């Protein structure tokens, strides 16, 4: 993690050993999530599949609906769940079970309709009633097809369960997405490899079950539910209740950073037992009182939207995060007019302006393009597009509103002031994905923050960091020179605002508890423990 600022490069094995507690817990959570949702999916899907073999008229509707559920992107489905079920385990299980439904319903239907008609007729002619035919003939004969469906559903669930960490349900996604945000390959692999192994393992085990001969199938139909229940219960073993009077939720990125939770622990001695949650739902969860303390960014528009206040960082652990476009040197050579065009924005956007712009996109749901256009117009920077064709500048952005707005502004500026055209690759996930895209010549520029460049990309020794982070100019100068040296990438002039990390609380609660600084928060928590 970011704590290993120095000395030697940590191996994956060392990382996994060091984090074995977390790894074990996440794996258990992952298995638990997969199988709780699988059991519920079987309990719903199997009877539904049987029912549509009896009412063929409804088979199209049921299979169609399950099919549509399957096509909803996983992140979107998790997003839909939050207004209904909040954050945590419940929405994750519901989303997973919706994905698992289709293969189970479809295979139950196919399996049962595929049973030899002569066998069904014989069963009927011998005087079996419909339940006897179902349990003694149809289900046993359809079992291998149904098991194949359950097998597919299991593998899907192991995959989708990685996304559960977005909504604070845990699982191996915590390492995967934390690792992506932190540019930590070991962390990504520590989540991804066990997840892949789980998928392979369960697929193999279920395939053994599927190809058992017919006689042993009878034992299989008894042991399978038992096994599933045991696996599902695994989730509840490690998930001990979160301590403390206040519930904290941090993004995976914040969790693993020296200038995040690690710094809070080491410099403030603050232990809030946070749950891991995606940035996309964290603010809303705070507003809805499901969380009390969250990590966030000081320019976030949702601060304003959800009545949150920033706690003062009285020990200065959050380094400055001044935003500036970073551009590959060869792109600057290829597009001589680029630098001065991008610098048109420098010094123009303060913290409060940026907060307001973010508020418009995140809360008022104006499009980033409109927000960008309005801003440029009000500052007399907007010029109509020249429809240039003298090469294409590729602009990237990370996957949040502020980056979209900045990318839109740069797009309009380049089209209005130069003869270049622009293609945008927005939504490149976290820092790692964006920076790798830039470094590998897949984009020409994207807006980056000095603190991120320092801590997530350069990762110098803690001594160097301590000497830099108190002063915003020192940080910028260091980052600019190191990027030039190491990657041949240039930091252009800062845009003006400082989008630093911050701890936030609901304004009303903070006032009630007299918490203004992070030290106040610590005092409050300790007084209650």
């Amino acid at each position, binding site marked *: 993690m970011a704590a290993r600022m120095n000395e030697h490069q940590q191996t994956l094995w060392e990382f996994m050993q060091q984090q074995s507690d977390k790894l074990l817990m996440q794996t258990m959570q992952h298995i638990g999530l997969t199988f709780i949702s699988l059991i519920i999916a079987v309990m719903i899907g199997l009877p539904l599949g049987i029912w549509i073999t009896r009412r063929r008229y409804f088979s199209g509707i049921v299979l169609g609906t399950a099919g549509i559920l399957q096509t909803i992107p996983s992140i979107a489905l998790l997003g839909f769940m939050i207004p209904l079920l909040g954050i945590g385990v419940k929405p994750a299980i519901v989303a997973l079970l919706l994905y698992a439904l289709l293969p189970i319903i479809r295979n139950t239907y196919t399996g049962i309709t595929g049973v*030899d008609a*002569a*066998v069904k*007729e*014989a*069963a*009927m*002619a*011998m*005087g*079996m*009633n419909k339940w*006897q035919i179902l349990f*003694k*003939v149809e289900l*046993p*004969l359809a079992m291998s097809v149904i098991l194949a469906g359950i097998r597919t559903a299991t593998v899907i669930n192991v995959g989708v369960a990685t996304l559960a960490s977005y909504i604070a349900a845990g699982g191996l996604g915590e390492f995967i997405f934390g690792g992506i945000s932190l540019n930590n390959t070991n962390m990504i692999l520590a989540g991804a490899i066990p997840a892949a192994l789980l998928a392979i393992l369960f697929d193999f085990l279920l395939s053994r079950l599927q190809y058992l001969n*017919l*006689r042993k*199938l009878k034992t299989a139909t008894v042991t399978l539910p038992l096994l599933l229940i045991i696996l599902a219960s695994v989730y509840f073993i490690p998930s001990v209740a979160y301590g403390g009077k206040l519930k904290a939720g941090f993004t995976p990125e914040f969790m693993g950073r020296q200038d995040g939770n690690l710094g809070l622990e080491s410099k403030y001695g603050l232990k809030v037992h946070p749950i891991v949650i995606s940035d996309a739902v964290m603010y809303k969860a705070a507003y809805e009182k499901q969380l009390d303390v969250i990590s966030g960014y000081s320019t976030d528009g949702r601060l304003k939207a959800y009545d949150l206040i920033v706690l003062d960082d009285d020990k200065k652990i959050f380094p400055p995060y001044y935003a500036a476009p970073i551009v590959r040197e060869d792109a600057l050579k290829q597009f001589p007019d680029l630098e001065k065009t991008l610098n048109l924005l420098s010094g123009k956007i303060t913290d409060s302006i940026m907060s307001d712009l973010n508020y418009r996109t995140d809360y008022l749901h104006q499009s980033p393009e409109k927000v960008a256009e309005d801003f440029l117009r009000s500052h007399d920077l907007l010029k109509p597009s020249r429809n240039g064709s003298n090469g294409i500048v590729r602009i990237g952005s990370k996957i949040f509103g502020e980056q979209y707005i900045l990318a839109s502004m740069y797009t309009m500026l380049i089209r209005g002031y130069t003869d270049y055209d622009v293609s945008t690759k927005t939504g490149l996930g976290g820092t790692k994905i964006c920076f790798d895209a830039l470094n590998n010549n897949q984009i020409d520029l994207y807006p980056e923050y000095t603190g991120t460049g320092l801590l997530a990309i350069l990762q110098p020794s803690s001594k160097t960091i301590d000497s830099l982070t108190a002063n915003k100019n020192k940080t910028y100068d260091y980052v600019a020179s190191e990027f030039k040296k190491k990657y041949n990438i240039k930091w252009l002039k800062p845009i003006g605002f400082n989008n630093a990390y911050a701890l936030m609380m609901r304004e009303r609660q903070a006032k009630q508890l007299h918490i203004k600084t992070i030290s106040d928060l610590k005092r409050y928590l300790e007084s209650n423990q």
Partner: protein
Amino acid sequence: MIKVEQLSKHFCDIKAVDNISFEVADNEKLILLGTSGCGKTTTLKMINRIIEPTSGTIFIDGKNIYDQSPELLRRGIGYVLQNNGLFPHYTVAENIAIVPQLLKWDSKRIEKRIAELIEKLHLSKDQLKAYPNELSGGQQQRVGLARALVADPPVLLMDEPFGALDNVTRSKIHAEFKALDELKRKTIIMVTHDVQEAFELGDRISLMDKGKIVQIGTPTELLYKPVNLFVESFLKEQRLQLEFKAVRIKDIWALLPYSKKVGNVNLYADISVWSGMESFKSQQADYLNITHGDETRSVGFEQLVTAFYKYQNGRTHE
């Protein structure tokens, strides 16, 4: 006794079975004969209520079958299917035990009954633990028959039971079928499209076409007193062989000469001329001792055939 009254079944606009009536006496073997699509299978499946009729009623031993629950009705009627319909996930023994288990017999009784049946049906004890797919077609069909007979139902319905078998296996099973004492005490309705089979196994034949019964009667009646051209042309192609099968030795008894020679095979005169002719070959006999009433005559192959032709000439000149 089975009594079918004004039975009809319509599938949408198609009259699969069109207002038919017939009766089957106790222990009688009635064959429903006809080309595919004539309604014979639909008729059969209405008797155990696998298909519900559009109109009409059926009585078994005077009781209306629609007054009983279909499950209870079916447990008292044996059913044999063309593709045997054995449960692939059950062993042979488990397959045969299905109906007794539904009837809640105790396991000893089931075991005893199965042992009795497999001996009669020439199956071996080792095969009881086998799964159906490990058996030959003929063996599977025997298991299917055992399953239908196990609870000793008075009525047996058979839907093309030997249709999937090759010729050699089929004629072997035909012979066993006729010899099986269990079947002699049963009222049987059998569907087939095979004219030879119908003549060989049936006491009476109901020839169907387009959902109606064209003629119902004994094989001899169909052969020699066809009601119309359809019946005549239906039997035309295989007529000679059918006649051998339809005519019984007792029918030509008066035309058989006395012979002094004594054969080494004893038979009764109610077998068909065809069976008699087959016996010469299968028993490698020169003469058969045939008994009709109190009298026994020794007959050679040529004498039998000559008597048959004399009989035939007599019928056609009537």
